[in-house]
């Protein structure tokens, strides 16, 4: 959706309200009719589903187009409130099955992103099985995006696609402080569903997972309940350590070109694509919460409430890593997270962070099990490897966090209307 996504500013980039979408589409005058149309497959039972649209376009009506000529939605799109991320193992040995799955996923995502169902909820034939489980009926598109990723396994010997492997796609190397659990690691395909209603995101993943049966099985998943990185017009949200996260995120076109979108050195079919590094990072919230505030600030390198660098007073003040205190020590400690991760100290390297906070109840010790689903997009996973190799070695944050899950995916460009994500892989 380059035509819309590429705009660096403006609310709800690349989005149109569902009312706007339908108006543009012509024949369907009211969204109520659109819902009725979906449920058309449900025949007579569906008549009651079409409820009149509210007078003004609400957040629920925001719809991001799936088809386009540039990047997939869900990367530069302003982060929605909720996510469900799922990684899959391909179980088929037949390339054609993968092709059909990607085509079906694409068509289904296009439907879901408009707030439509995928097939009938209540089929009129008594022996028919409903295709769409129905729990997103009446909820609207809610800004849903579903972003498809390809893991290294898609390009192994099974499907004859090795010659088209994205240039920078390889399993991540082991890095310092990794505490990866095999059950939370890897995957041949990924789906990142984000929406402003958690049930809409969940429904998308449920529906697409069901569609994958026989071709791919679930591997690991994280449900994120709150965004932990901001788009350019959003107030910087906070991670579960209580600190603002993503203050210095990538916002301008030049940085997207330099650090996010796949380069001309990559496979031609990856033009407009990117790479996704997903890490499940457990946060020891219970010990963090009992750490004194001066130490918390020193660990992060910023103040907690304002989010200012320790050398400044406002969130967006540029950190001064050279500044020394009276005793000659750096004001922003060299082992603080900010100092280690800053592009100034990493040859300019940046990544686009698009993470979400998660919680999964309580762990075996009765402690709150929570953390950050770190999702970052980049031109080359080496950017993450460079940063994490350094952070894993000396980041003081490592006392409180643990990288327990990990995967890397090539994220192909958007599909043009009439095609599907990854179609270029299967054309001879």
């Amino acid at each position, binding site marked *: 959706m380059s035509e819309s996504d590429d705009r660096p500013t403006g609310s709800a980039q690349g989005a149109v309200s569902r009312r706007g979408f339908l108006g543009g*589409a*012509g*024949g*369907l005058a009211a969204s109520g*009719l659109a819902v*009725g*149309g*979906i449920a*058309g*497959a449900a*025949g*007579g*039972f*569906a*008549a009651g589903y079409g409820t009149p649209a509210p007078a003004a376009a609400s957040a629920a009506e925001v719809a991001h187009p799936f088809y386009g000529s540039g990047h997939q939605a869900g990367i530069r799109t302003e982060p929605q409130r909720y996510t469900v991320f799922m990684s899959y193992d391909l*179980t088929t040995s037949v390339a054609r099955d993968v*092709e*059909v799955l990607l*085509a*079906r996923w*694409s*068509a*289904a995502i*296009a*439907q879901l992103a408009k707030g*439509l169902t995928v*097939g*009938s909820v209540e*089929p*009129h*034939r*008594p*022996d*028919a*099985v409903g295709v769409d489980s129905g729990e997103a009926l009446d909820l609207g598109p809610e800004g849903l995006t579903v972003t498809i990723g390809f893991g290294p396994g898609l390009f192994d010997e099974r499907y004859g696609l090795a010659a088209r492997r994205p240039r920078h796609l390889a399993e991540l190397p082991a890095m310092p402080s990794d505490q990866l659990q095999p059950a939370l690691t890897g995957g041949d395909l990924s789906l990142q569903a984000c929406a402003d209603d958690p049930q809409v995101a969940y429904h998308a993943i449920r529906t697409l997972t*069901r569609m994958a*049966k*026989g071709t791919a*099985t679930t591997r690991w998943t994280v449900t994120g309940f709150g965004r932990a990185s901001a788009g350019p017009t959003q107030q910087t949200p906070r991670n579960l350590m209580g600190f603002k996260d993503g203050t210095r995120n990538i916002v301008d076109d030049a940085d997207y070109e330099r650090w996010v979108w796949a380069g001309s050195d990559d496979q031609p079919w990856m033009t407009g694509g990117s790479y996704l590094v997903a890490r499940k990072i457990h946060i020891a919230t219970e010990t963090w919460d009992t750490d004194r505030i001066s130490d918390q600030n020193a660990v992060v390198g910023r103040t907690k409430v304002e989010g200012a660098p320790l050398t400044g007073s406002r969130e967006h003040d540029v950190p001064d890593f050279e500044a020394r205190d009276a005793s000659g020590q750096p004001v922003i400690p060299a082992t603080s997270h900010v100092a280690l991760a800053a592009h100034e100290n990493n040859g300019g390297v940046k990544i686009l962070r698009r993470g979400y906070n998660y919680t999964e109840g309580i762990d075996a010790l009765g402690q709150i099990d929570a953390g950050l689903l770190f999702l970052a997009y980049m031109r080359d996973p080496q950017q993450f490897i460079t940063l994490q190799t350094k952070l894993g070695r000396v980041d003081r944050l490592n006392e409180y966090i643990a990288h327990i899950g990990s995967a890397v995916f090539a994220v192909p460009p958007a*599909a043009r*209307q*009439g*095609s*599907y994500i990854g*179609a270029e892989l299967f054309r001879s």
Partner: protein
Amino acid sequence: MTPVHRPRRLAAVGAGTLITALLLAGCASTAGSPGGASTASGSAALAEVVGGASQVRVTLDSSGAGDVCTMSSSRAKAGPVTFTVENRSATGITELELMSDQRILGEKENLVPGLAAVSFTVTLTGRSYQLYCPGASTELQTFTVTGTSTGGGNESVQEELATGTAGYAAYVTQEVDNMAAGVAALRRAIDAGDLTAAQRAYAQARPYYERIETDVDGFVLSGFDATDNAGNLDYLIDMRASNLDPAVGWHGFHAIERDLFGRAAITASTRALAAELVTNVGRLDSLSKTLSYKPEDLANGASDLLEEVQSSKITGEEEAYSHIDLVDFAGNLEGAQQAFAYLKPGLTLIDPALASSVQEEFSTVTELLARHRDASALGGYARYTAALREQAAPGLSRAVEALHERLATIAEKVATA
């Protein structure tokens, strides 16, 4: 298994009238086609004949009026007709069917934008057919065939399905006869007080029920209310401890299982339970001989057997004392496979791709289960311990799910309204 008080056969009879009414309701509410199947998108000229078959192109597009399904021609002369379907941009349509009197004659699935065009050929005779595009702004369109053709494909589908249902009825009768012999042997071993022989007889008798349980799960003895478990044969034969009705108490296989494996003792009560089981299986035997099946009964029965596998075998709930859950699993699977096998010739004429993919999924599950064969174990499969469950359940469960998902779509395709 859970008690089901639904008289299966009666429900199936009622469905015949119901489907007609619902399908009509479906047409009437379909946007843009108030007349239901009276519209047709294509040219009224007869479809061109190439290589002996009339050629009809069907294109699926996204338009201002929603997704549309367009035929190049809405008429053809009797004989083979090839439908070639291409989805150019309609994300709301993923399948298409050719129907006659609500029977599916031919169909294509996975019709999504970006995939190459696919085709199917059916032999049609002079009459009106319906092209059904679920999800399209006009879902039903009329396709008219003129003249007569010898060897209509429609009739052969129905013949194949009729042969299949008759064959399946004979299979069920045979299994219930075998079950009667199996429980008689179990009773003899129990009456003789031979615990080891009784345990072996128990494991040998179980699979017969597991193969056909979804065909008989609604049986209520005459004179009993449908909500009274005391008259529900499935309850009396196969109820597990987890779903007991305190008003009726525990009867049947699993009460005997508790004595033979949990208590490892044969008591007067065990003998009474065995005698009662023989009586109830005898009742089932006579009742089952009165059953007849529609093709959708086979499909739904097979699907329900897989539901049984998923809900009570893979979890290890079914055989809580004997741990022969994998024996029951194999029984459910074999029953489902038999039902499918009897449908397959007819289904292959309707949807060869589905028939072969279900066959493949059956093979996958069968091979996975075969890894746990153990000739030395009771019933021929490894004892389903907690450790084995932890190791094997995720893989088995996923394979069954993949099979179940596809199997569940068969019923509506073979349903004979």
